[in-house]
């Protein structure tokens, strides 16, 4: 049993600061949504709102089309995997996992059997009688997941569930979370500040900043065609080149930039006033002569990052320093003159200021 959820213009203030500022969000049934943002962006407040731990000052929360704003966590069809796991230290793993079933009046036999099934689902078969303190961080994480899933919630909430794990384990758990979510078809809402994690598992990424949603959509779309400067930079490194609309040339929208007049990425409406052209470093390559926009300049910094060389180029005659990812074999040295190039279609137009 799974349900979609919606938040309608939810506002939550703490004193004079708005942790959530008229936030609206839709997550379809069975989707894996990841709320991404820096600390203090309101992402945990949003999750608390969905779980019923935080009451909004105004606005509504709907789960499966039903208004649950006034329903507390006890009766809400959601369960949460907490950041510190919050396993009950005085119970064995089976009793931990079966706790929600016990609250729903299941008898001891059936609920322990169901707990064993859930533990097997998360790769802990036969561990029913162990205690939480005897487990590693990754195993506790799995138990917390099994406990939250045992009651078959309509929506599962995960509050930075992988934050305490080391990198390798994190990546492994990401794949596993995604696999479990696919298998069960339950709607998952997962909070993190790690954009790689978000892209690895999300069907929908919700980027938050200062209590507002900076962008929301499929990860490819949010990464490649972000709608705000904040979303563009939070999803990964990006070069922002100031840009202004110019009169059309040959039926093509043109931009005035410090790099010279450039054709605008097609199909994008130009915002009035100041805007920026966003270019991802991996879209800037060594020029092969023809095609694309040519950017000559001087290398001022170069470092080897394993998968690529990260190069900072000072464009000539003018323009802000540009970061580019060049191939491993490129071996650029500071002071070297290079011509970089990018496809105008790979660049994205961003409003000058994020809307307030």
């Amino acid at each position: 049993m799974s349900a979609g959820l919606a938040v309608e213009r939810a506002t939550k203030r703490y004193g004079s600061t708005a942790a959530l500022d008229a936030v609206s969000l839709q997550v379809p049934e069975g989707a894996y949504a990841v709320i991404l943002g820096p600390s203090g962006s309101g992402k945990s407040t949003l999750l608390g709102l969905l779980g019923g731990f935080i009451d909004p000052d105004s606005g509504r929360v709907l789960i499966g089309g039903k208004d649950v704003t006034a329903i507390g966590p006890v009766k809400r069809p959601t369960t949460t995997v907490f950041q510190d796991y919050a396993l009950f230290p005085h119970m064995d793993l089976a009793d931990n996992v079966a706790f929600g079933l016990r609250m729903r009046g299941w008898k001891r036999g059936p609920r322990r059997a169901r707990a064993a099934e859930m533990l097997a689902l998360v790769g802990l078969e036969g561990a029913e009688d162990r205690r939480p303190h005897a487990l590693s961080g990754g195993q506790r994480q799995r138990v917390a997941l099994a406990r939250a899933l045992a009651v078959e919630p309509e929506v599962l909430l995960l509050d930075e569930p992988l934050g305490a794990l080391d990198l390798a384990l994190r990546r492994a758990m990401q794949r596993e979370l995604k696999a479990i979510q696919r298998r069960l078809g339950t709607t998952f809402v997962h909070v993190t500040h790690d954009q790689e994690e978000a892209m690895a598992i999300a069907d929908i990424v919700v980027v938050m900043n200062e209590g507002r949603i900076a962008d929301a959509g499929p990860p490819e779309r949010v990464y490649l065609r972000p709608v705000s400067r904040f979303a563009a930079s939070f999803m990964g490194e990006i070069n922002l080149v100031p840009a202004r609309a110019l009169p059309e040339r040959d039926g093509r929208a043109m931009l005035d930039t410090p790099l010279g007049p450039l054709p605008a990425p097609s199909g994008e409406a130009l915002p009035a006033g100041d805007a920026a052209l966003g270019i991802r470093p991996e879209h800037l390559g060594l020029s092969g002569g023809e095609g694309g926009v040519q950017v000559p300049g001087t290398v001022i910094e170069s470092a080897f990052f394993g998968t690529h060389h990260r190069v900072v180029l000072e464009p000539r005659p003018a323009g802000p320093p540009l970061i580019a990812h060049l191939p491993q074999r490129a071996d650029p040295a500071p002071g070297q003159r290079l011509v970089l190039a990018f496809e105008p279609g790979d660049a994205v137009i961003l409003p000058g200021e994020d809307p307030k």
Partner: protein
Amino acid sequence: MRIASGLLAAGYVLLLYAFIYLPVVVLVLFSFHDGRLPIPPFRPATLRWYDEVLSDDDVVEALLNSLGVAALSSAAACSLGFLAAWGLARAALPGSGAMRTLLMAPLTVSYLIIGLGLLISFNLTGIDRSLLTTGIGHAVINTPLCFAICAASMGAQHANLERAARDLGATELRVLALVTAPVLWPAILAAFALSLTFSWDEFVIAFLLTRFEVTLPVEIWSLLRSGLSPKTNAAGSIVFLVSVIAVLLAELLLFRRRRS
């Protein structure tokens, strides 16, 4: 030189412990004294006085009264202290700092003042002095202690456990019964054991608030009025033994908690 100062230090330590424990040792020793008066020289050794104490109906009745008062008043003090600590730890209330201070303040007030205050209050309300009023008095002195012990062991991680329990559908009562109390069992039991010892050998309040049925310390006091006898030593030794057991129990529980 170093040997001399070492000896000096050792001697000082011995004296200190003798100062603290000699009265107890003498009390216990002379409870086995084979003579009518608990005075030196010590003549070993007889269990006659214990036999006499335990066959004295008044003493045995007082002992059972004491146990009952101690157990029930400690249970009341623990429940009240635990609930107060839980409420103040979990709810953001205006003036919670003041409430904390007011709850702990009775720890500094003398038992005589508390006893007199209760005596006057019970007189005004027309409640007769009895074991019940004594129990109430003991609950009054022990609630701040239980509150302090429970409050000290309630941390933020426990608040998260409670959140998790609610999230899984537990009502407040079940959160308390299935999560908060079991997780804090060691602290609650330690508070209970300490309350037990305080109530068990408390004299001033019991003296002021009992009437016909008395607790063991009050009974021992009336034994003393008829003069010193190894019998009172035996009764005192029993009181001491029970206290030691309760303190050890509390120590064990708190110590285990700190280790885990």
